[in-house]
Each structure stands twice: as structure tokens, then as C-alpha cells.
């Protein structure tokens, strides 16, 4: 069982690695990190702040684009192209297929983040000529970005299990944007009355709370991140991904591959 999941994950990884669009996106993210140096040079005294802010935002944004771009097609494209027929007619359970796909995509994003992070650190070194202890905080921000990706992968996979790639992309992007404003949605729910309060509260807890993962600005200002937040975010991301994946499995188990 574990082997089959690993084989599916490694094939998903291989598919992503052989996709040229992925390289274009990574190159674009690295360019943006490079551009941060230029912007930093015209922002006297705050070069480092600009490089960290722009660099990590590029990593996060392009990672999200890659996660959604690849994730939305993981199941629906396989059904559309009928590549799934020769996989599921083997001793592969449907849930193993979904979990394998998830790990393949998550693995791809971890590797991408690693390379994009090298770009950010290189840009940082270029403007500061040295690394200081506080720069290690960037690793925490990168960890939170990876946790974000884990959630997005699972959500993209969930949408991909029942809708077309185009609709999945719309759903996943919308959820990402709403998720970035989850705190505001919660505040709004607190102020609302009656049925609107119930609806807003329900929506606020249903959408992934990405605002808790965004520590880029505070890290750029060298403010430490509490260990409790790291633990909280880790548990939240893993629980959310587990729920989204359970939904994807549940839907996919009952889906007819016409």
C-alpha cells in the first residue's frame, strides 16, 4: 500500500518536473527576487526589508499559482484523458491514488520552494554581504509558506475530484483570496447580527485561514515568531489538509469514470 502511494507520488512529481510551465514560473519568481535588489537599491536603508518582503511574497505567490495550476488537473485531467483507467484497473485503491497525487504535488512544491528560497537568500546576501542570526527567521516564513501550499494542494485536489480544471481553478483561487482575508471575515462575523452572523461565522471557519500564515512583514522587521504559532499553524494546516483530502477521497470513491 505504502509503496503504491510512493509510486504514484513519484510519478506525479516526475510529471510536474517535466512540465515546462513549471520552469517558467520558477524563473519568473527568481526574476522577481532579483528585481527586489533593484527596488531595494532605490529604497535607501531598507534594502534588506524590501528584498525579504518581495522575495518571500514571490515565493508564496508563485507557489500558490503552481499548486493550483498543477493541482486542479491532477484528477480531472486523468479522467478526461482516460489515463486513470489503466491505473485503477490495477490493484490500486482510489484513496491510494488521491493520497499519492497529494504527496507528489506537495513534494514538487517543497522542492520548488527550496530552489526559490536559494534565490531569496542569494538576493539577501547580495544586498547585506553577510547573514545574521535574525535571517534564520526567514526559514520560519518559508515553513509557513509550505504549510499554505499543503492546504492549497489538498483544496485543489478536492475540487479536481468533482469538477473540470477550469472550475477547479476558479474555486481554488477564490478560496485562496477569501482565505487571505479570513481574519477580516471573522471580525465581520463578530459585528454582524442575526442570520448574517451565522453565515459569516460559518464561512469564516470553513475557508482556510491564510492570514495566520503570513509572517513575512514581521520577519522582515526581525520580529521573532512564537513557538506556539508554529505549532498551531502546523496542526491547523495538517488538519485542514486531512479534511479536504477526506472529502476528495469520499467524492472520488463514488465517482463513475464515464
Amino acid at each position, binding site marked *: 500500500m505504502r*509503496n*503504491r502511494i510512493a*509510486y*504514484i507520488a513519484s*510519478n506525479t512529481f*516526475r*510529471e510536474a518536473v*517535466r*512540465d515546462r510551465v513549471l520552469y517558467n514560473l520558477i524563473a519568473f519568481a527568481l526574476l522577481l527576487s532579483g528585481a527586489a535588489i533593484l527596488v531595494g537599491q532605490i529604497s535607501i536603508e531598507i534594502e534588506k526589508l524590501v528584498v525579504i518582503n518581495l522575495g518571500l511574497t514571490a515565493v508564496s505567490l508563485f507557489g500558490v499559482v503552481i499548486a493550483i495550476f498543477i493541482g486542479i488537473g491532477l484528477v480531472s485531467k486523468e479522467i478526461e*484523458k*482516460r*489515463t*486513470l*483507467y*489503466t*491505473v*485503477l*484497473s*490495477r*490493484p*490500486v*485503491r482510489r484513496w491510494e491514488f488521491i493520497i499519492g497525487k497529494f504527496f507528489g504535488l506537495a513534494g514538487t512544491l517543497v522542492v520548488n520552494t527550496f530552489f526559490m528560497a536559494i534565490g531569496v537568500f542569494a538576493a539577501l546576501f547580495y544586498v547585506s554581504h553577510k547573514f545574521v542570526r535574525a535571517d534564520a527567521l526567514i526559514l520560519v516564513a518559508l515553513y509557513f509558506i509550505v504549510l499554505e501550499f499543503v492546504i492549497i494542494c489538498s483544496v485543489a485536489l478536492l475540487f479536481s475530484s468533482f469538477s473540470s480544471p477550469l472550475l477547479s481553478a476558479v474555486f481554488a483561487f477564490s478560496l485562496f483570496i477569501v482565505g487571505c482575508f479570513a481574519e477580516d471575515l471573522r471580525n465581520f462575523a463578530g459585528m454582524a447580527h442575526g442570520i448574517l452572523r451565522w453565515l459569516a461565522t460559518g464561512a469564516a471557519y470553513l475557508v482556510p485561514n491564510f492570514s495566520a500564515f503570513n509572517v513575512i512583514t514581521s520577519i522582515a522587521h526581525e520580529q521573532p515568531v512564537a513557538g506556539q504559532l508554529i505549532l498551531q499553524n502546523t496542526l491547523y494546516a495538517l488538519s485542514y489538509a486531512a479534511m479536504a483530502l477526506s472529502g476528495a477521497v469520499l467524492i472520488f470513491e*463514488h465517482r*463513475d*469514470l*464515464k
Partner: protein
Amino acid sequence: MPAIEILGLEKIYSVGFWRKRPKRALHPLQLTVEDGEIFGFLGPNGAGKTTTLKLLMGLVSPTGGSARILGHEWTDPAVKAQIGFLPEQPYFYDYLTVRELLEYYGQLSGVPAKQRSQRVEQVLHQVGLQDARDVQLRKFSKGMLQRVGIGQAILHDPKVVFFDEPMSGLDPMGRREVRDLMEQLKQEGKTVFFSTHILSDAETLCDRVAIIHQGELRGVGAVEDLTSSVQGKIEVIWQGTHIPPSVKALGADCHVSGDCARAIVSEDQQDAIIDVLRRERQHLISITPVRISLEAYFVEKLRHSETTAGKTA
């Protein structure tokens, strides 16, 4: 023990967006395929052949009924390690080379790592793709993809093989090779269940066939039984190019080819035509019962089912 037992499998789809309405794709199907047979599943396009195969592969869930493959429930994952499947017009991960694809399928089918590479090479030779082993599948023609499809279906040495339209997209040489491969699989003791609408292939290859139309089974049996039971005519061949008028008088369908003449008459005129040929001092070569072609039987069954459906309506 039968290799495949289909016990009333049926499928009704819900069609329509807002107002869902049921559409029956397969009426409850009862069918048994014996171990070591080549079994042809015949029917026109949209008859329910692919639905049946998808049900057996667990790609769609049945509305009712069940099936057993090699004595086990067809949904049992252990059974899937012993079956191979070629879907209709197969499409594969086009970023992989054929060798990588077969390696991947070997992994999923549980082929031990030590034997995998050797088995992949063996199958590449078997389907004639050894020279294209490191070419990405996106560069493959339709016929080559069909060969890949056959290769992946037999890669893990399954006991039962399901082929959905295996000759589709192949040139005459390719079709011949697939026919040979099926014969070879039979000789190895495997059961081959294949769907087709190319009747000549079925006639040449199959031990038994089933005919399905509009989701309903219309006939099943050995090809010879199906084709000999309905004709009731004999073909008489004698030497010479002369056709006596008394033979024509029997209402025989006569023609001459080379230095032989032949006549087709009904079975009850057998004695009469032999008497005539003796009287005319013709040298008799053979008398054989005329078999209806599988195609004629197939068309007859389809016409019959359409007439029945028309009357019911």
C-alpha cells in the same frame, strides 16, 4: 471454475443537468466465460460493451448485480493483480517513455523489482516496440499507442485479459500481430475477453462469442453453433464447367470457378441433386453444409431485436 462470471450486472446512468432522468446502459447481464477461452463480446457502437468492461474493472459502479473473476469478488484488489485491461483508444502519460510507463505499471501491479526490467524488455519485444523504448509517448502514432496498451495489459502476466476494441487503429499487419498475440495468450492458458465490432476478427479468433445490443444480451455460444444452426443449406461441388439444366431446375444457386462448378441448394434437396449429377455423369468432389457468416448472424440478431423493440413500443 469459470474465469469470469457476470451475475446480473446492470447500469443505469442519470442524465440531464437540472431534471435528471435515468438512462439504462446495461440490462442485467448473465454471462460466463470459461477458463482458457478467447471470448468475443460483440455489438455495434453504443451497445454496452465498454460499460460492461468498465463495470468489471471497477471504473463505474453497478446499479445492481455482481461478478466473480477467477472465483473471487470482482472488486477484490487481489483479483486486479491477476487481470490485465486495455481500454478503448488508450491514452497514456505522454511525458513518459514507453519503458518508464511500463516500469510504472509494473510497480503498481506488484511485479517484483528484480524481475521488472527483464519483464519490461520482454513485453517491449512482444509488442514490437523495442526500438522505441526511450521515445516519449507524445511522439507515438495511434497504432503504436495501441501496442503500448496491449503491452501494459499483459505486463504483469495476468491470468485473465480484457481488451476493449484491441484492433482499433491498427493497420492489417498490426491486426494480424494482435490476433497472433491473442492466440499465444490462449496457448499460455490465459483467458481473453475482448470486445469488438470487427466480426471477421471474432470469427477467426473466438471460441465463443456473445452479442449485445442496446444494453441487452442477444445471443451467446460457440461461433460454429451460432452460424450453422440457422442456415439449412448445402454446397455441392463437382468437376467440370457444365451446369446441367436439371440442377438449375432444382432452384439451385449455381456458379463456375476455375474447373469446378458449385451449387447451393436446401438440405432437403441433397438426394435430388446427387441423383441429377450421377445421371449426368459428373464427378462429385464435395458436399458441405453452408454456414451463415458471423456477420449475417449478427445482422439477423440486431434486426430481430430492433423489430421486437418496435413492436413493444
